[in-house]
């Protein structure tokens, strides 16, 4: 992304806005959290925004996105409704799922955001199944399926890769490898780090990114998505990234035994929000930042002001009509 053409500048601005919106929204969630207004676990993506943004920026509105309980970033990057998300975290009736989902099960089908799951790996075959249906539809729509490094250890991941490759499903798998499953490092979980080589044995084109540079991710996703639309079958991106906050909850945990603040520093040094912002001129950036603050404040206010769901709501949606 040289930033020399107006088109490039538009992309940079759009990408920056998305990165910044996610970062600030989650910082706001972390700020509010101690008030107990968000009575549910939150798994923040702070530090990992670039993966979601780089990929989702190349998706069409009618493409579909699937993510995990650590899904705020992907949800917003795909265009999920922020007010409904905030109200959902507050457990209000105006939440995307009327307060039934909370942070871990965000969904927004209007934005083609598939429902997220708190059981690791469960969304992978479901995303593939959705892609299966899109494939039959033959309109060139694809599914982008995000998951963590730990999810690749579940058998269903391998089963899904085999099926997706066998039937050339239009799905882009993205593994956000942040090196940890809760506090467990890769070395406790992976026999080798040859994940991309393994994926390739299914006939799936892998792309290994050892840093979460947002524009590299974007270009990789762009190329992969185009090929998938044209029938290449599934492709796979493994992107190394880093979780800046604790596994669950609003805080940092560098004083806990499993990692050191020094581990964070190289990642902070190429903080994608800062770097991308730096590519814009100060005035434009300020406008974006101000607009984002307003949007977030709005969403929080909306959540605050929204009513709790009625007691009867407990019994709705057990069965579809």
């Amino acid at each position, binding site marked *: 992304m040289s930033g020399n053409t107006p088109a490039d500048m538009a992309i940079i601005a759009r990408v920056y806005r998305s990165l910044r919106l996610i970062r600030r929204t989650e910082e706001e969630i972390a700020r509010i959290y101690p008030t107990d207004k968000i009575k549910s676990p939150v798994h923040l993506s702070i530090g990992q925004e670039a993966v979601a943004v780089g990929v989702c920026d190349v998706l069409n509105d009618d493409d579909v996105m699937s993510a995990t309980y650590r899904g705020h970033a992907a949800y917003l990057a795909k265009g999920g409704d922020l007010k409904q998300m905030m109200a959902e975290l507050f457990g209000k009736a105006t939440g995307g799922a*009327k307060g039934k989902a909370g942070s871990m099960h965000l969904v927004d089908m209007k934005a083609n955001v598939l*429902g997220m799951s708190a059981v690791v790996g469960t969304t992978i*075959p*479901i995303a593939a*199944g959705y*892609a*299966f249906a899109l494939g039959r539809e033959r309109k060139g729509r694809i599914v982008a399926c995000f998951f963590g490094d730990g999810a690749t250890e579940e058998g*269903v991941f391998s*089963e899904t890769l085999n099926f997706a490759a066998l039937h050339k499903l239009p799905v882009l798998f993205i593994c956000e490898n942040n090196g940890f499953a809760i506090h467990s490092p890769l070395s406790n979980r992976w026999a080798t780090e040859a994940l991309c080589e393994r994926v390739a044995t299914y006939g799936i084109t892998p792309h290994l990114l050892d840093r979460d540079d947002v524009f590299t991710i974007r270009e990789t996703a762009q190329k992969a998505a185009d090929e998938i639309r044209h029938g290449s079958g599934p492709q796979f991106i493994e992107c190394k990234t880093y979780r800046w906050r604790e596994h669950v909850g609003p805080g940092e945990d560098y004083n806990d035994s499993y990692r050191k603040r020094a581990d964070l520093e190289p990642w902070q040094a190429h903080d994608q929000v800062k770097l991308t912002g730096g590519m814009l001129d100060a005035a434009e950036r300020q406008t974006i930042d101000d607009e984002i603050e307003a949007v977030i404040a709005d969403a929080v206010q909306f959540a605050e002001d929204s009513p709790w769901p009625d007691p009867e709501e407990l019994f709705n949606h057990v069965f579809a009509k």
Partner: protein
Amino acid sequence: MSLPSERSLSYVEALQEALAQEMEHDNSVFVIGLNVDDHKAIQGTTQGLIDTFGPERVMDTPLSEDAITGICIGAAMAGMRPVHVHIRMDFLMLCMNQLVNMAAKAHYMYAGQVSVPMVSRSIIGKSWGQGAQHSQGLHSMFMHVPGLKVVAPTNAYDAKGCMAAAIRDNNPVIFVEHRLLYSTDAPVPKAPYTVKFGKARISGAGTDITLVGVSYMLVECLAARDLLAEVGISAEVIDPVSLMPLDVDTIAASAEKTGRLLVVDNAWTAAGASAEIIAAVCERHAEKTPVVSRMGYAPTTCPTTPALEKDFYPNASTIASRAHALFRPNDPAWVPDVEPTLPHEAAFRGPF
């Protein structure tokens, strides 16, 4: 079946016809599962579908029950109507995470933004050395989880009507079949029809005791009814047809009338469908609860040898004997001297 109809079909033919008609009438319906497209065609239940609808709608799969279940859920969320076939119910244990944690919950957890119209067909095996891992009736596990429907038709008429209803239902339906019902015939209308879930059938009227037979045990209960008639006991036999929703009204009304309820499940009794039916009925009768009893698999793993397997299952004779003891508690125990296994069962040689 008292319903009028010119022709009679086997349970297998009825299932096949339901699948063919639903696929015909709705392009979003597809059948998926290991060997659904081969010459054996799941004992004939998918016969000819591959020729009529092609490999895109009749799909063989890898042995990946967990992922295939998730793929069906995803396809269903996108508007398709998968029918996932398992040649044994035991294999559903590989699908529990997707069925319990995703399929059952998606519509609720996402507040109606998606629904999961899918059918999981599963066959319960019996006899011919099916043994520990090819004989289990695990339907109660699915009855336990809100969001899943469970249906276990016991005759060809209900097999066709329930399959059509299951496919058209907008929720995940666990469709429980029994291998030994496959050869049984019943009058079956040619035109498509559905059998409503949540309505039990009185398969045989009676006044002295109520027998509820789940899945294949309905057949044994009907045979027990004949045996009981010989000793002057009039048994009313009820077929729940669907287990979730469960028609407690019909069962409770019958038990109220007869004063005695014996529930016979094609499964273990502990925390099973039989426990649910008895608890539900007893909860309703604060005043005069009926005399209640359960029968089901022996509280053991299923052995392969017929020498032991015969005592693993309730049969017409043991059911009649238990019913007699409930009706005439003060009489000496009575065991009808008949072959424990029904003829068509004794004749069963597989195919596996």
